[in-house]
């Protein structure tokens, strides 16, 4: 086996030195009848060439650009990824190292995480950010658990326009903890949370959870919502599934959010069929000892030289065990590094420009589609790069027709909201040229006209 340096002869020699005859002597503590008598029933080993060919054949059975044009978003976004991102995370020192428990020989990872925490604070307008969580959905679940720890209240209100899969994850996490989740009804016209719907918030609510831009793409009035939520002594959790929006929109932290968490996939992380991604989590300094997951902080050595260490570890499972703020250990370190490299490369101006391009292109597409006979925008709220189209035909049928033209037109919302049969969630990012938007519009027009003619 080429991944094992010692040859069979060397292994035999090492055994003899220990006074053993056979490799099986090393497994004496396993009762004989529990040992496998036959080799595992797995395919025989593949050579490098065979393995590569096999995986190429699997990869070829997935549809990607340019075989299809895609307007899918809904929590996973196709953005430009600078080439240097992959080149830099491919440094062995980054990807083949462990969690930086030994700071003297892990300063590369530690400093990069410190930079990540700083960038997340800047983008969200918060004071403290952690070193990452698994993904946006689990970050939201951790936010809910933290809100319960802080307020000692056991009910959360989750806006009906939060990503349905995020909501499902929260349900899974909170049910053993005895926390109940209720749905905050959103406005049928705007698609957003109406601040006045929170005016009589009961005193047993730990947190109100909203997503902005919400699952339908609409931008929430975080400031007005925060005021209502705080009046009842509850915390406001703002989830950001499309982090690129932070390049343009007023940061939730500046609007009064208590916890801002979400998904950093938009920052240089490939779609990869939904993972690995990178959850982020930011809050106020006063809550820093309640944060889940790892934190990196500044420290000095005996000679006064600065460096970075994992800190406030008494919150964590390896010290606090069942009293820890979370059970998380391994997080998404390398992907936090990816996001850090992306944000450094794009920088102040690039993130802004990319965010603006998303807005311009999505609005162009929305204007063109809304001008077609039979199509209209379902919601009136301002949006970032996603919007909901009501189609003249059921969305599923429309999508089938589009697919004949090699276009994946978006996500049929009936998948999560059975009553929204005609509705399609369309996402347009900066990676989609105008010509492709025009193809989509033209195809929708043809499908629409087929009905009316």
């Amino acid at each position, binding site marked *: 086996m080429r991944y094992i340096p010692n040859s069979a002869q060397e292994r035999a020699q090492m055994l003899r030195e220990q006074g053993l005859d056979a490799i099986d002597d090393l497994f004496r503590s396993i009762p004989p009848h529990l040992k496998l008598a036959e080799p595992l*029933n797995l395919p025989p080993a593949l050579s490098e060439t065979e393995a590569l060919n096999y995986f190429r054949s699997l990869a070829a059975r997935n549809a990607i650009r340019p075989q299809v044009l895609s307007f899918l978003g809904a929590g996973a976004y196709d953005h430009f990824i600078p080439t240097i991102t992959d080149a830099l995370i491919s440094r062995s020192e980054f990807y083949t190292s462990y969690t930086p428990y030994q700071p003297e020989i892990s300063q590369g990872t530690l400093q990069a995480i410190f930079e990540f925490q700083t960038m997340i604070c800047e983008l969200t307008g918060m004071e403290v*950010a952690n070193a990452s969580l698994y993904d946006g959905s689990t970050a939201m679940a951790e936010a809910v658990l933290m809100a319960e720890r802080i307020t000692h209240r056991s009910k959360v209100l989750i806006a009906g326009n939060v990503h349905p899969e995020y909501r499902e994850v929260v349900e899974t996490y909170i049910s053993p903890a005895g926390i109940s989740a209720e749905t905050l009804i959103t406005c049928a016209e705007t698609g957003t949370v109406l601040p006045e719907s929170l005016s009589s918030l009961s005193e047993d609510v730990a947190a109100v959870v909203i997503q902005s831009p919400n699952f339908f793409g609409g931008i929430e009035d975080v400031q007005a919502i925060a005021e209502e939520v705080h009046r009842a002594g509850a915390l406001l959790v703002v989830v950001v599934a499309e982090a690129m929006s932070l390049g343009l929109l007023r940061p939730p932290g500046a609007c009064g959010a208590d916890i801002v968490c979400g998904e950093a996939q938009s920052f240089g992380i490939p779609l990869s069929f939904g993972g690995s991604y990178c959850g982020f989590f930011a809050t106020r300094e006063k809550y820093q000892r309640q944060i889940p997951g790892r934190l990196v902080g500044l420290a000095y050595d005996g000679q006064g030289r600065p460096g970075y260490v994992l800190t406030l570890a008494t919150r964590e499972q390896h010290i606090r065990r069942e009293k820890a703020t979370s059970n998380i250990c391994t997080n998404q370190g390398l992907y936090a590094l990816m996001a850090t490299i992306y944000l450094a490369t794009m920088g102040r101006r690039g993130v802004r420009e990319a965010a603006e391009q998303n807005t311009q292109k999505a609005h162009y597409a929305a204007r063109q589609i809304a001008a077609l006979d039979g199509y209209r925008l379902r919601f009136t709220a301002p949006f970032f790069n996603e919007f909901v189209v009501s189609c003249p035909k059921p969305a599923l049928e429309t999508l089938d027709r589009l697919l004949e033209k090699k276009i994946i037109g978006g996500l049929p919302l009936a998948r999560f909201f059975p009553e929204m049969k005609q509705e399609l969630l369309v996402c347009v990012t900066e990676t989609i040229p105008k010509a492709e938007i025009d193809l989509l519009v033209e195809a929708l027009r043809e499908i629409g006209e087929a009905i009316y003619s």
Partner: protein
Amino acid sequence: MNRKATTHVNQNEGLIFERSRPGRIGYRLPALDVEAAPIPELIEPSLLRDDDLAGLPEVSEVDVVRHFTRLSTWNYAVDYGMYPLGSCTMKYNPKLNERVARLEGFAAAHPYLPEALAQGNLELIKELEECLAEITGLAAVSLQPAAGAQGELAGLMIIRKCLQSRGGPRKRVLIPDSAHGTNPASAAICGYQVQTIKSNSRGAIDLEDLRQTVDEEVAALMLTNPSTLGLFEENIEEVCRIIHAAGSFVYMDGANMNALVGVARPGDMGVDVIHLNLHKTFSTPHGGGGPGAGPIAVTAELEPYLPFPRVVRETGPQGENRLRLDYHRPQSIGRVRAFYGNFSVLVRALCYILSLGPDGLREATETAVLNANYLAHHLKSDYELAYDSQLMHEVILSDKRQQRFGVHTLDIAKRLIDYGFHPMTIYFPLIVPGAMMIEPTESEGREELDLFIEAMRSIAREARERPELVKNAPHHTRIGRLNEAEAARRPVLRWKKEQKQENQG
């Protein structure tokens, strides 16, 4: 100074924010090709940022490459050499896996692709599930959990849900005192009280004690096997019988599965649920702290409770084989994360399994166990072995003999850095005072193991003859030991413009 390490120049580098210079550019996007409207006409100005993102840096592409490349040189890595962290299984991360995971068909696939257009990915998921079911000897696998701790949580939730369907979730989870911290933390999130059970003098579960402790309120025993002491739980079948007789379940923490793959299977021992760490046993990179993947394997009885969606094989209208995602799982615990798991990690793990095949997997296990025993054989003359029993894939030493010179485990670990090695896991398991937990894995050749032995013996000698040298280690790193207590007392968790991080001394 020694045969492995030498000092060499490495570059100073500040924070990326300190490199920032107004006007520098590191990217270029295509020019906007649609007619643009003023942004405030599209989105109300009150909803827009007004800080111009001033906190993000302005740097060129060259700046970014230099910055992160320099940072990278401050890390130790598996590709440099032995990384003997016990229970972390820092084995070689094959380059082929990296290449395969980057194939466009995987990397550019959207999670909401219509199923017919994602058959390759669904096949990959199903195939890895089937391989892991065979390796663990259990009926069904879910690849959704993002890491070991999430696998634990999902596994316990499955047990909870099953018990609920039988009448009640019960109250307690039994966890040996040698367990990883994630075990009790996961049990607590799952709503259980943790009851610690003591290991006996041989590092095993005391059967009598277990019989006394188990009752109708025990939901599960969480067991690591081999334990974190590196020992196989010889009475595993009896342990399972005792637990099952009380109507409880056996959860196995699979962190140490690198000692068993191809040799023995948890399912055959009576285990009901196990999580695997693909970033340990199945060679996917640790990435400086993640991403990992923590699939869970369960018995047929528990299969209905696995997280949804499940990938299922079916026959299409033309008799073709195809795969689809099944969301209709009424007994499921629900989702534990969005989409289907850390897919890019799953690709690497399957490539590893297929590259090794059944014989290679067994050879890896055997070599890992051989290497650990080889280290123990050569180190026990200088260090105290925590348990002088038949070891599996890791060896636990203590600082008992070095303490009388005022040298402790932390000092030995730090001194090891000067010899060109990453330290072992230290002060864990908690039940061994001054524990040094060493897991060489199969990826180390004899020379590297010999260098490690030489370094450890040399440190033992230094502890006797020049203890101050060990106590002040490391001596050859960019920075010395950092004041972690002070860092926690006054946490500085982000950079701020006004704060210049210069020498304090």
